[in-house]
């Protein structure tokens, strides 16, 4: 039990005290996926085949927004919103434009989120998918604006919203402007909720900081993928403050559920079905004849 308690801590530090030989696997590093949760090294091929899931512990690893869209939305149903929005440099942060531009080149994305409308097994919804490969999906003006607009469109069209969250938090390079995106997006969630519409969040790896402290935590129903990292403050920050090592489960989806903040932990292969069912539950026309 105590052994388990520190497993993740070690894995995050990057060494395995229990099994030092594990650290000296003589396989070219490109061929292996090293699980941040359980420390196992598994062949990339096996990992990819499992849908980017650790076959040892079930940790659900990161997907790109496009990969996520493909396994979530009905084929050909996605209509993207606000493709044209791109970052400026609100506080003239040195090197910010260059960083954004190089990420645009590298990832083929314009920003850290795609938003739009799609169908999930025929059920229409507004969808947003954050992509941690773009500046750790930190929330600056563009992310905030796209989310606010997505909710506003959902209100106009009386549609539910499904949001896949992943983020390092507010985007430091945009300073106080990024902090305000938390309030802005939360305001949009509030209006959508007041309109009696359904909002479902799916917490994916990693959901942290200002995103956890805003729209990610405000879903009518909050789902999470297994073993992913969800929290407000970073583990190292907390460990530094309290001068203690934190337990294994700390800030995992399971930890969050036990502490009352996650409704359901859903495996990737069931996600589409669960979303479909939740969308059905919240459809006004779902009321059967016998009740009237």
């Amino acid at each position, binding site marked *: 039990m105590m052994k388990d308690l520190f497993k993740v801590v070690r894995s995050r530090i990057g060494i395995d005290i229990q099994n030092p030989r594990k650290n000296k696997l003589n396989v070219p590093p490109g061929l292996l996926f090293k699980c941040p949760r359980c420390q196992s090294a598994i062949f990339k091929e096996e990992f990819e085949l499992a849908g980017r899931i650790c076959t040892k512990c079930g940790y659900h690893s990161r997907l790109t927004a496009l990969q996520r869209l493909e396994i979530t939305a009905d084929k050909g149903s996605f209509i993207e919103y606000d493709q044209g929005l791109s970052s400026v440099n609100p506080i003239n942060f040195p090197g910010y434009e260059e960083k954004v531009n190089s990420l645009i080149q590298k990832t083929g994305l314009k920003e850290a989120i795609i938003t739009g409308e799609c169908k999930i097994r025929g059920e229409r919804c507004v969808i947003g998918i954050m992509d941690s490969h773009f500046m750790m999906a930190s929330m600056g003006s563009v992310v905030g604006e796209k989310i606010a607009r997505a909710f506003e469109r959902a209100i106009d069209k009386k549609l539910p919203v499904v949001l896949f969250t992943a983020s390092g938090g507010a985007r430091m390079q945009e300073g106080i402007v990024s902090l305000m995106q938390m309030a802005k997006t939360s305001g949009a969630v509030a209006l959508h*909720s007041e309109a*009696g519409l*359904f909002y479902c969040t799916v917490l994916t790896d990693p959901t942290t900081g200002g995103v956890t402290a805003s729209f990610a935590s405000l879903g*009518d*129903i909050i789902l999470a993928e297994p073993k992913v990292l969800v929290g407000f403050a970073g583990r190292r920050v907390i460990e530094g403050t309290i001068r203690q090592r934190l337990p294994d489960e700390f800030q995992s989806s399971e930890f969050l*559920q*036990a*502490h*009352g*903040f*996650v*409704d*359901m932990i859903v495996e990737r292969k069931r996600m589409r079905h*669960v979303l479909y*069912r*939740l969308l*059905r*539950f*919240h459809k006004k026309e*779902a*009321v*059967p004849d*016998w*009740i009237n």
Partner: protein
Amino acid sequence: MDKLTAWERLSIIRNPKRPNAYDYISSVFEHYYEMCGDRLYGDDRAITGGIATFQKLPVTVLATVKGKNLEQNKEVNFSMAHPEGYRKALRLAKQAEKFGRPVICLIDTPGAYCGVQAEQRGQGEAIAKNLKEFMRLQTPIISIITGEGGSGGALGLGVCDELAMLENAVYSVISPRGAANILWRDPQKEKDAANTMKITSNDLLKLKIADKIIPEPAGGAHNDVKMVCENIVEYLFEALKKNCKKSLENLLKSRYNKFRKVGMFNE
């Protein structure tokens, strides 16, 4: 069945073979999706809650859970909820209100948990808030006592438009053992207390606290779970039809009156 005493009924509903919330939920409803957490402190396994469909109608289900063995009972704390259980129930009830889903409560608990941490986190406040909020919840609430209706712990899910009891269920202000202890300072007089305190479904119907008795097979629900579930379905079907038809004003007024009129006195 009228011949059975309260004490005999108690032994039926405390039988470990008696169906629990999950047994009822899985055959009365479809597509039960369990939701966790109070968004404040924890997830109390003593109360389960979630969304399901009843005859194709989306409903929110809230239920106290008894375990079938020691291991399960440890997990659900012998069905004695902490404040986070009542707060989860309230959160899900408010969600049901937002989306216009009726709420169905299944109650089988010896009572709310009595302990230091439960007090620290405000057990009294949690139950009180449920009574107040359920009283004004803008969607129909149907509650069924399926076994033990233990005091405030049961009432925390018991403010409703209609209350039904399974035939052998009981509903009481305190456990018979507790009553014996307080009234006669002798917990051994549990049996006398049970038979004195008017706690059976028939008593409650006569006192106009319960609105309906749902029949059980001879010997108790465990002898024919399917039959009991069919009876529950039939009851819910009628109760929902009746209460979903009411205007909101009418619904809340009659819910208020259901409790407002309880009390006996001379003046």
